[in-house]
């Protein structure tokens, strides 16, 4: 068998033979230039390799990656200096006639609103409240989006809110229980923990324990339960242990959490 025949069989194994090559291979087999029994044995073995399993990596692998990524992002933030000269040059470059006119109109409107509102603190507070409310609406709408990174951003926005309402909390709890992304769910736990003084959040977090499939999310919930001192969570963790098969490290984590909570 020569190199060309070998390449033909390799292409056959990958399923990339053209019609012409298929005919060529059939002719070679018919003529005996390629041994049919050998060829079938190789094909069978190639198919059989599919049964070889690869064990799943440990949850620590994912943790390590996200820790490394967070470090790198932190470094990026620290090193990205602000070049004032470059900023001014960029701004000047971007200024056009219509933009100038638009800015002027905005200035007039701003001046008018400013003079009308004056130093009225109530109105300023009202404006600030409206801004907060808009931010909450934006967060809720982003949480419903299809992109995991947008949903992560939404969860991060929630952690910037000075206060939050029932609707935002319900959206976060819904995300915690239903979001397909493990990372989003973990970030949501941290965001909800900020509102841990509210009964609805505490109850929602506890109820979520038995709904979670991912060990990483369960571990994150365990940490929050300890942080918030939610003793009622111990019962839910016991239930989880009885209902589900958990990995060794998660099992240990839960046992430790129960011990701390009780």
């Amino acid at each position: 068998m020569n190199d060309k025949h070998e390449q033909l069989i390799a292409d056959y194994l990958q399923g990339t033979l053209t019609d012409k090559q298929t005919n060529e291979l059939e002719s070679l087999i018919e003529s005996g230039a390629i041994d049919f029994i050998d060829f079938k044995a190789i094909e069978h073995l190639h198919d059989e390799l599919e049964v070889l399993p690869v064990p799943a990596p440990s949850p620590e692998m994912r943790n390590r990656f996200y820790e490394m990524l967070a470090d790198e992002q932190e470094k990026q933030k620290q090193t990205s200096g602000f070049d004032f000269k470059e900023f001014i040059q960029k701004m000047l470059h971007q200024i056009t006639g219509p933009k100038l006119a638009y800015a002027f109109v905005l200035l007039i409107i701003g001046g008018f609103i400013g003079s009308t509102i004056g130093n009225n603190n109530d109105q300023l507070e009202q404006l600030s409240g409206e801004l907060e409310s808009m931010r909450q609406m934006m967060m809720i709408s982003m949480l419903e989006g299809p992109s995991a990174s947008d949903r992560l951003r939404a969860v991060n926005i929630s952690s910037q809110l000075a206060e939050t309402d029932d609707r935002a909390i319900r959206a976060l709890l819904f995300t915690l229980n239903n979001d397909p992304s493990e990372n989003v769910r973990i970030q949501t736990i941290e965001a909800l923990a900020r509102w841990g003084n509210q009964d609805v959040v505490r109850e929602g977090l506890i109820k979520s324990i038995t709904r979670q499939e991912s060990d990483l999310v369960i571990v994150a919930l365990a940490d929050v339960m300890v942080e918030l001192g939610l003793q009622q969570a111990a019962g839910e963790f016991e239930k989880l242990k009885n209902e589900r098969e958990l990995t060794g490290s998660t099992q240990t984590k839960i046992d430790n959490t129960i011990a701390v909570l009780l």
Partner: protein
Amino acid sequence: MMKVKDGQLDKLGLLYERYSSSLYGFFYRKTKQPQLSEDLVQSVFERMLKYRDTYTGDGSFTTWMFSIARNAHIDHYRKQKRLREDEILDEERIQGEDPSGLGEQDLRAQRKQILEQAIDSLDEDKKEVVILSRFEGLRYQEIADIQGVSESAVKVRMFRAMKELKQTVTTLTNEYSNE
């Protein structure tokens, strides 16, 4: 990856979710060591960040990623000066698997064991071609780019690897059935 290159590092998380299992499988099939495979996956993503500026987006991302993976694997053994470790580990593993217990295993488990030993017995280049082609679904041209050889050479390697596997599997099957 272009977004990561542009500074949106959070996008690397999406690449991780998509490709980490594949990379882990690649390393595990090469080394049979779970912890080392995890370390090497981490190393690949660290290198992706470190060398993100070198990514041009011209070729496929998978090719670029597996090229980094391949280098990470080679560097690991060079740094540790343990180029022969594969052979030693193979010997240990084969010794560790009690042949006397094979009679109690079902035939399917025994067959898997034989197939794994046969793949381990291939030289690194051939093993890599089988892993990338059969398990990771890469095309021969992509593997050729990763290994720095021609596509024809990869096809020949694939065929010869399969032929060697067939012979080793036959030998091992006979050995086990004689025990």
